């Protein structure tokens, strides 16, 4: 595949890197020496923007990975603040503690009561440390399950926002049953007696993502990713070389377009040119319009039919030779 060869896109990346380095150098110079280099900086900035345009017109899978992980990409709190009203955050799994890497809330979408669960990445280092970079412990998944059960009790739809590098790989997470917590959520979500809508907004990191992503409809932002293993991890295992992550990103078929072709994702939500971080409100609007289109219909389906349809959806994913 063309996508696996570094080729021209790598050249563009290097050009961009050089230009950004030059801008940074001139800024520092202008600040330290108190001279006005605004004109020069603007010229180079314009050239950098041209290169960015070239990159984002046809981003490689590895570029898409960078976009999905972009530090300025809209976070769960941005989506929640913009899409919902009457938000009441709920805390704790009632068993061990409250996991800030997972956010759960009661909310209204255009007046309709819904239950929101999602990975809670931070916007800066301080927030990310507090929220463990959106990597939940078992208690995070158990909190999500508790709140989804609440949705089931009142037959409110669940809206799950996925954005995590993965479940936290730590000793305490293992001791408290990370695998069990994920397995339990997957099983329970597969038969949760209320509609479940999944929106993959950033990184869909393996089992840690799937643990809140089994539902009736899976939506995915254009430059989000969803993968069984990180490209770095894949490259390290397969080629014993984590620097081959770009190749692995292509091989893993982790983009929204790939996943739609594999029937894992039902609908791709468009992002602004260059990625959601360039115009967060546009990305949020795309999610809003999808919720408007799908939520009313999902609520009307009889539960048994809904569960049959959900079972069949996952039952059919895969490619086998008999």
């Amino acid at each position, binding site marked *: 595949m063309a996508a696996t060869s570094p080729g021209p896109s790598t050249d563009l990346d290097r050009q961009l890197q050089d230009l950004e380095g030059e801008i940074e150098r001139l800024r520092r110079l202008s600040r330290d020496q108190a001279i006005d280099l605004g004109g020069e900086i603007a010229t180079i900035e314009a050239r950098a923007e041209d290169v960015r345009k070239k990159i984002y017109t046809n981003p490689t899978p590895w570029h898409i990975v960078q976009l999905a992980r972009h530090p300025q990409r809209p976070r769960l709190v941005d989506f929640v603040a913009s899409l919902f009203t009457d938000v009441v955050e709920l805390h704790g799994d009632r068993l061990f503690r409250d996991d800030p890497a997972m956010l759960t809330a009661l909310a209204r979408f255009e007046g309709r009561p819904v239950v929101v669960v999602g990975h809670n990445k931070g916007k800066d280092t301080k927030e990310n440390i507090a929220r463990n970079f959106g990597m939940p412990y078992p208690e995070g998944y158990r909190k999500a399950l508790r709140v989804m059960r609440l949705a089931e009790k009142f037959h409110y739809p669940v809206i799950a926002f996925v954005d995590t590098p993965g479940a936290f790989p730590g000793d305490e*997470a293992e001791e408290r049953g990370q695998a069990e917590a994920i397995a339990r959520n997957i*099983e329970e979500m597969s*038969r949760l007696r209320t509609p479940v809508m999944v929106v993959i907004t950033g990184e869909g990191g393996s089992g840690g993502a799937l643990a809140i992503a089994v539902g009736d409809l899976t939506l995915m932002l254009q430059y989000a990713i969803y993968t069984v293993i990180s490209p770095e991890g894949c490259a390290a295992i397969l080629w014993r070389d984590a620097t081959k992550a770009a190749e692995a990103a292509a091989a893993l078929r982790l983009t929204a377009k790939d996943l739609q072709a594999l029937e894992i994702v039902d609908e791709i939500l468009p992002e602004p040119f260059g990625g959601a971080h360039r115009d967060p409100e546009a990305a949020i609007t795309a999610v809003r319009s999808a919720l408007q289109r799908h939520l009313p219909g999902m609520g009307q389906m009889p539960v048994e039919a809904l569960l049959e349809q959900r079972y069949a959806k996952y039952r059919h994913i*895969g490619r086998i030779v*008999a």
Partner: protein
Amino acid sequence: MLNWLRRPKYSSLQRRDMPAGLWAKCPRCSNLIYRKELERNLKVCPKCGFHHRLTATERLEITLDQDSFEEADAELTSADPLKFEGYPQKLQEAKEKTGGAEAVITGEGTIDGHRTVVGVLDFHFMGGSMGSAVGEKVARAAEQARDRQLPLVMFSASGGARMQEGALSLMQLAKTSAAVGRLHDAGLPYISIMCDPTTGGVTASFAFLGDVILAEPGALIGFAGRRVIEQTIRRKLPDDFQTAEFCLNKGLIDLVVTRSDMRSTVARLLSFFGAPRVEPVAVAVEPATLEPADARAGGGSSAAEQ
């Protein structure tokens, strides 16, 4: 003092220099064991109790009543939907090495007379990894149990999801867990047995969803790999971390059962949960011993690769 707890290094397990002839070297205690004695002892080291890995075929042999097994979907295998570099060759090698078509064998048989659906993952087939075909076969096994009102017994040994099938492999966690969920809804028993090693996506799906979860002594059981965890927490983990005994102590599994007691333990559980006993069996409750390795093609004494 903790020497008996120390897990064998993968490197020592992967060594191919086990004497091919009459003697086998135990990877834990390094003693040379007369191979026939090892086979007679269900591939458990008579010196130190180390449970050597079994192939799926060997596991079925020592678990099910003689001639009771009817395999399902023996030919079913994964496609190469991602056109993933080197995957067709790896699949082919695994098929030749194990003589099977995939990393799990499923079917129906009896355990001490109790009719049950059974599945056994084979770590020797691409590390027991779960791709589309493994997910499909496990889901079918759960559905078959439900249709025929039978229990499900699953022996797991797997490195997790098969990355060569990308997100399709990840979705098998959902497929298998959903099928197991329906089995639970139908009120049928599901016994999950974790063998060395059971990690990643298989633990995060059907393996941890059993009504009762058993494990073999010393089996490695966990979600994330030791190296990844050590890099994350920047600390060395204790030697017994993620062993079956560690998991028992942390409340994650029900019982650690030695190989020689496994068959009778599963039979007792099936009996307790009211699994129908088809016929009074003349076969002794004692598990069958493994045939000498030289009687079979391939054999299972060399460790898995992946």
